[in-house]
């Protein structure tokens, strides 16, 4: 599965990085970047938590 951050909405609160540091990193520009092409099965739960915690609800699975 792929995951995407809507960079127009992202405000750099870094909740996603806290929930799934393997998948998200917030750079110095305060925008979260997805680090992996495909999210491995064992990280899906962490990414779901990141999606839930994102203050701006800017993260979504790519269907």
């Amino acid at each position, binding site marked *: 599965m792929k995951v995407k951050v809507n960079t127009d909405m992202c405000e750099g*609160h870094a909740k996603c990085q806290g929930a799934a540091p393997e998948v998200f990193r917030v750079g110095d520009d305060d925008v979260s970047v997805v680090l992996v092409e495909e999210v491995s099965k064992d990280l899906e739960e962490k990414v779901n938590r990141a999606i*839930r915690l994102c*203050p*701006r*609800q800017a993260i979504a699975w790519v269907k």
Partner: protein
Amino acid sequence: MMGLEQKDWPLMFELTNKVLGSGDPEYQTDIPEAERGTGAAARLTAMTGFATMFAYFRERLEERRANPRENDLITLLLESEIDGEKLSEGDLLAFCFLLIVAGNETTRNAISGGLQVLCEHPEEKAKLLKDMSLLDSAIEEILRWVSPVHHMARTVTADVEIRGKTLKAGDRLIMWYPSVNRDEEMFVDPYRFDITRTPNDHLAFGIGEHFCLGSGFAKKELKVMFQELFRRFPDIDLAGPPERLRSNFINGVKHLPVKFTPER
């Protein structure tokens, strides 16, 4: 940040109390004493606070129009454009009002409420004083525990079913933050104050489109305040019962008597 003169800060404090604490007789100072504590007194107090603050910021906008300043939030708002259009006078005033009101009442009540809960849980306070690296995590727990804003409202935009309850488009909802932050499904032992709680996915700043604009700044203010307070007055403790704000919107502490050994 807003470049307001220090002599005006007490006025901002007073007007914020009138607007957000309008239901509390202590702030209904424009109402004859015998008539305080009623709904009418609350409405009048809030209106007086609004009107005085808008008049104050109308003057500040005039000043900045005549003399724009550098690194000044009000000047920045005046010069900002959305899709090529400047903000209207009403939007500018509402923005200034919101920054002042939402930017002080919430954070200062998280500070007073935080100090109260730490003093009421001496073992947690001792843990923090022994290891101040726990402060970030303690602040999250303070935010969960205090939930400085009691509620916000939303209007349902489309019919939806949540946990067996049907909500219809147009329905009005109230989201109670102290309740959501004590959700047994989200928090283990939610009524325990635990400065090392992990995970601590509280919603004290809301979530989604209207997530608190100042959340990062608020946490920074809380951190600096508690760092300095406990560095200078490590033995600070309650000296009497807190006086709480009468409000269903702000979880406020009006007066928190404390005792401590003064710095030498």
